[in-house]
């Protein structure tokens, strides 16, 4: 089965170093792994272990110092800023700990935003509504984030992440700002997203690949596979 499809994520000897004043900090020391399509992977590790750095590299928010990163077969480790923006827009959906919704915009407008950066598209409203109803808050479409509860905000953020039909969804501590019950609901939503993808335009439903960054073992349990990190290396797969 693994031989049929190429891995969604193919990371080889990926490293990232930062200049901190005089010294150079090795945040990531030659990490290699693969993630198959439809997988649900949790990245765990203490703070400073390099999981955030890896997350930024996987999200095309940052470029590696060395090594290669293939996303859907395309080498995205040496792209220009413009090309990286394009990859983020088309292949990646982000879910953040602090939701990161625009406070001035209502839920609908927040979900539409990534589609608007794609250029002309007459089905923007329809797709955004679809995503909102999939996360179960279609009735809150006209509310601003300040008028929504934490759980509802995170649902809007998930709708925004999946509205572009991305290859991977990167969730960075998605339950970190939620109480445990709401957190569990959000995690169930994410596993559902992973297991029962939405059919769209009559296409065959694509299993959604999810990378989850967390330090909470309970949250990590929802994943099929856990990568432990320490000192910029993967210690346990």
């Amino acid at each position, binding site marked *: 089965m693994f031989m049929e499809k190429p891995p969604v994520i193919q990371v080889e000897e990926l490293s990232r170093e930062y200049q901190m004043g005089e010294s150079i900090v090795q945040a990531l020391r030659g990490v290699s792994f693969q993630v198959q399509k439809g997988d649900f992977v949790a990245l765990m590790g203490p703070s400073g272990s390099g999981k955030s750095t890896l997350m*930024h590299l996987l*999200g095309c*928010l*940052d470029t590696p110092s060395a090594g290669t990163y293939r996303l859907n077969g395309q080498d995205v480790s040496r792209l220009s*800023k*413009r090309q990286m*923006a*394009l990859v*983020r*827009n*088309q292949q990646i959906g*982000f879910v*953040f700990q602090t939701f*990161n*919704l*625009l406070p*001035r*915009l209502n839920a609908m407008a927040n979900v539409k*935003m*990534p589609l*608007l*950066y*794609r*250029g*002309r598209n007459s089905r923007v409203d329809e797709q955004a509504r679809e995503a909102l109803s999939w996360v179960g808050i279609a009735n809150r479409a006209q509310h601003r984030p300040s008028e929504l509860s934490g759980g509802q905000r995170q649902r809007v953020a998930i709708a*925004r992440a999946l509205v*572009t039909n991305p290859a991977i969804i990167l969730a960075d501590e998605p339950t970190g700002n939620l109480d445990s019950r709401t957190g569990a609901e959000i995690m169930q939503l994410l596993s559902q997203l992973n297991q029962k993808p939405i059919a769209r335009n009559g296409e065959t439903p694509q299993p959604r690949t999810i990378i989850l960054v967390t330090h909470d073992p309970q949250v990590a349990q929802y994943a099929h596979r856990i990568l432990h990190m320490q000192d910029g290396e993967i210690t346990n797969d």
Partner: protein
Amino acid sequence: MTLFNTILSALGGIAGNRLRATLTTLGIVIGVASVITMLALGNGARSAVEANFRHLGSDSVLVRVKDKIDQGEIVPVGKILSYEEGLQMPKEVALVKWVSMTIGGEGKIRHERNVLDMLVTGTTAEGILNIVSQQQVQPINWPDGIPFSEEVFLDRGRFFTPAEVVSNARVCVLGHKTATDLYEGDDPIEKVVWVNRQRCLVIGVFVELEVTNPALRNQIRPNESFYMPISTAIENLFDDEPSVEITARISDEGQMAQARKDITNYLRERHEIALNEEGDYEDDFDLTTRQEILGAQQAAARTFSFLLAAMAIVSLVVGGIGIMNVMLVSVMERTREIGIRLAVGAGQRDIILQFLFEAVLISAVGGVFGIAVGVLAIPFVANFNEGVALLAPASIPLAFGVALLTGLLFGLYPAARAASLDPIEALRHE
């Protein structure tokens, strides 16, 4: 991102802080309004210059005496320019077809108990022709486009004839208000009026006149006038023979340069001006043509306009710095928003455009209001400039364009700064 959505997000950004956007807009409003009013002042000045010299035809040479100030009095530098010299000019200079002459002096005008101290104008018989052809004034409520003749300028009676000018006839023509002030509604024709204790017969009264050029409205009062034959005026108003102003009509417009030379030679001979040690003539008179006056005065008016416009531009630049300041603060405050937009796939171009549109929108709105304020303010600034201020039509697109450009230029740096933010840093920003 489409243009429409870029504008929408720019509008959203402005709506996010209305007070600040309003205050910033105010800076542009003031800048644009001052551009409009300053250019109106310059335009008014230029238009007034043009109107003042319209009567000097392109076939005419204006001859005036050179004056100097001696012990607080204005006196000729050499000999006076006499009435006699004017009379002789057409005979002595072949290219001069005819001359008209004017002189002005203070006179005490009396009829029974009514006394007026006013400017008395002495002219040749062409005096009324000059008034008509200058087109500075017209009969009140005169319909546009219909040309007027000498007759319609006179309410009653007639203007004086060349014969009356030559014979120092004691006759005069009154302005409409002057006639009313002196005769209180009675018909003044053929009545006696006293000019500096000398008898004079009223032979004509002007109709009520209005000033055609708004730039001159507060400068001339056409209805307060008193005209006499120039010869009579010289006799009545002056102890010593005064200088007159001579307008010489040249028979052939193509020979203006030659005519100028001939008139100069004629006057040098009369005034006994010879070459001095340096090989120059020290003329005590000035010759001017329409081209020279218009050229010199317009150059002065243009310099004035440029100065005013420069001042106005400075205030626009101050407004622009206001925009830059506000946009920089806005970029800082919205760092996180920029991070989010970058994360979901906005390109640097999208971010630049969004913030640039915000700056341009602020300046465009400021431009529209500034134009309105500027146009409305013109009558008020005119009060400080003897009523000389005229909206320059080109100043509206100019001011608006400069406002947009200001927004664009001063918005560019903050927008570029927003677009160059690192998405990771921006997302971490509190």
